[in-house]
């Protein structure tokens, strides 16, 4: 934007010609770079600390470790049981992403495109629940899972994790599908393709931006989720997810800054990699959420 408004006429004056668009851009870049470095400093500091011994961390000093060590990672991996927690989290995340995406897409399709009786009511109900804080509903959720025999299993956790954002995702899908030309469905209907196949072969492939958004958002949700896994895995620490594991590791190692930062680093690496790979789709999808 910096150069956009540099006008013809004003560019003639000497002050302005010093600040030509290129220079302006350069200055903007430098300022932004400085801000961004401060912005990510805590995370960089965390990664840096994870390679330092505790005494070096406490001594302060620069970001580059004097005697880089992997010991923190080894310790965090073993003592925080990160390996096992990692796979628990992965299991819950992948499962909940699959279930959520498919259910939200199906429901979003029906809500967005199919004029079935009760559609408006369901829409209203979903909007109504969208704004109600869910933190305190954990007891009924747990009761339900217990009654289903899933109160202490990763499956239960996976299912309950799906509940978090299903409404938002459904509305995202519904919004997206409702904007699709209905001729696509009609064409496929003329071709003798049933609603299920049409959904699967035509509509779903076309909703890739939303799918990616939902996948990333649900991954973040499942990977971040705290209260739900905390309660569900209370009785069985072997089922803990990374967030809960790191939280309790922290409870046990308040002074082991190296271990905590190493554990944290291990935890965020997969999500960050996922984000870097999918960021274009993800950002498009998020953007769609506000435009739609």
């Amino acid at each position, binding site marked *: 934007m910096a150069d956009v408004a540099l006008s013809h006429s004003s560019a003639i004056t000497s002050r302005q010609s010093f600040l030509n668009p290129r220079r302006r851009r350069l200055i903007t870049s430098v300022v932004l770079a400085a801000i961004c470095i401060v912005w990510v400093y805590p995370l960089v500091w965390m990664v840096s600390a994870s390679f330092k011994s505790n005494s070096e961390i406490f001594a302060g000093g620069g970001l580059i470790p004097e005697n880089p060590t992997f010991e923190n990672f080894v310790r965090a991996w073993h003592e925080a049981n990160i390996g096992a927690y990692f796979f628990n989290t992965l299991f819950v995340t992948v499962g909940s992403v699959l279930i959520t995406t498919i259910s939200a897409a199906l429901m979003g399709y029906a809500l967005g495109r199919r004029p079935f009786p009760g559609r408006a009511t369901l829409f209203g109900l979903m909007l109504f629940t969208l704004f109600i804080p869910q933190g305190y509903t954990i007891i009924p959720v747990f009761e339900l899972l217990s009654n289903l025999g899933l109160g202490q299993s990763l499956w239960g956790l996976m299912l309950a994790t799906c509940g978090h954002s299903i409404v938002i995702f459904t509305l995202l899908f519904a919004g997206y599908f409702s904007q699709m030309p209905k001729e696509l469905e009609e064409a496929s209907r003329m071709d*003798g393709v049933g609603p299920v196949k049409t959904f699967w072969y035509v509509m779903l492939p076309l909703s890739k931006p939303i799918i990616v958004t939902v996948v990333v958002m649900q991954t973040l949700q499942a990977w971040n989720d705290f209260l739900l896994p905390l309660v569900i895995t209370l009785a069985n620490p072997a089922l803990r997810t990374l967030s809960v594991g790191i939280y309790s590791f922290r409870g046990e190692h308040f002074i082991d800054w190296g271990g905590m930062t190493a554990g944290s680093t291990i935890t965020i690496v997969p999500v960050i990699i996922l984000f870097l790979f999918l960021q274009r789709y993800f950002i498009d999808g998020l953007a769609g959420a506000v435009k739609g």
Partner: protein
Amino acid sequence: MAGVKLTGVAKKFGAVEVIRGVDIEIGEGEFCVFVGPSGCGKSTLLRMIAGLEEITAGSVEIGGRRVNDIDPSERGTAMVFQTYALYPHMTVSQNMGFGLRMNGVPKPEIAKRVAEAARILQIEPLLDRKPKQLSGGQRQRVAIGRAIVRDPQVFLFDEPLSNLDAELRVATRLEIAKLHGQLQGSTMIYVTHDQVEAMTLADRIVVLRDGRVEQMGEPMELYERPANLFVAGFIGSPKMNFIKLRATGDGGQPAAELPDGSRFALSGPEANGAATLGVRADGLKPVDRDGVFTGEITVVEQLGDAVFVYVRTPWGQEIVARFEPGAKVRVGERISFALGGRTHFFDADGRGLTGVTPGNTISEARLSA
């Protein structure tokens, strides 16, 4: 191959009646165009034939079989959509073969049919492209190809050309006309709001308005004998000139009075009811005297093969007349016209009157005398 017969077909959306009892019979192999202004229900009617809209009342028969409650895919119809409705994530050949694939047609058979359709439409080089990589015209062909591979008895076109630019529209119109020739015996139903398309393509035109059939017939029949004001105004370009008449027939001799008070005689059995005079641009002949009316030229449009001259009448109406190329007319000139070609008369309800012909101008002098 089959004809299509609509009997008393009606459609309601809630309390809104969109189609109000339509009876149409389209013969096998016929190219029938539904034409009408926006909102006249032509697309709805087409979609009812396709099975995309439910039929509130009446019956639709295709090939003698009542299809009201038959699934779209079972009706033997194929549809080409205005927006093409190509599946964006599939290649051209996948687009064309999708329906067949989903219905378990063996792969070699699909390939064969797709290749055949591609050959007919000359889109073989495009088969592996995605719709995004195609031009509008090419997309249109793919959409038609998708219809062809289904080998339907009835082709349904829903304004297939409206998304194309003018030049392409003309070219594609020709292609469709050719296609109709190639696909021997295929019945085609074509919806458009463009009367030129209707005139050029149709074996038969159905003019619709407000969910009713205004007139049905061959193009020239409609052009020459519009059943009512609406059809008369809708068919033909430039639009037919309409001039309000005041019937002044006294006694035996019917006559009509133009808004400026000039009068001319009328003859014919229904002459007394004439309320509107309709005359196309080529029905006005410039005359030196005894013209029906005189006006001042406001605009001259040179089209090369013709000249359209817009004339302001004394009562302030703008009338268009066709001149031969090279006609020497200038803006600001006054010019008199006589009714030199086919004229149309309509009664107060807009119904076309048959057999009414204009007679001589009744001069002021005679009048005053």
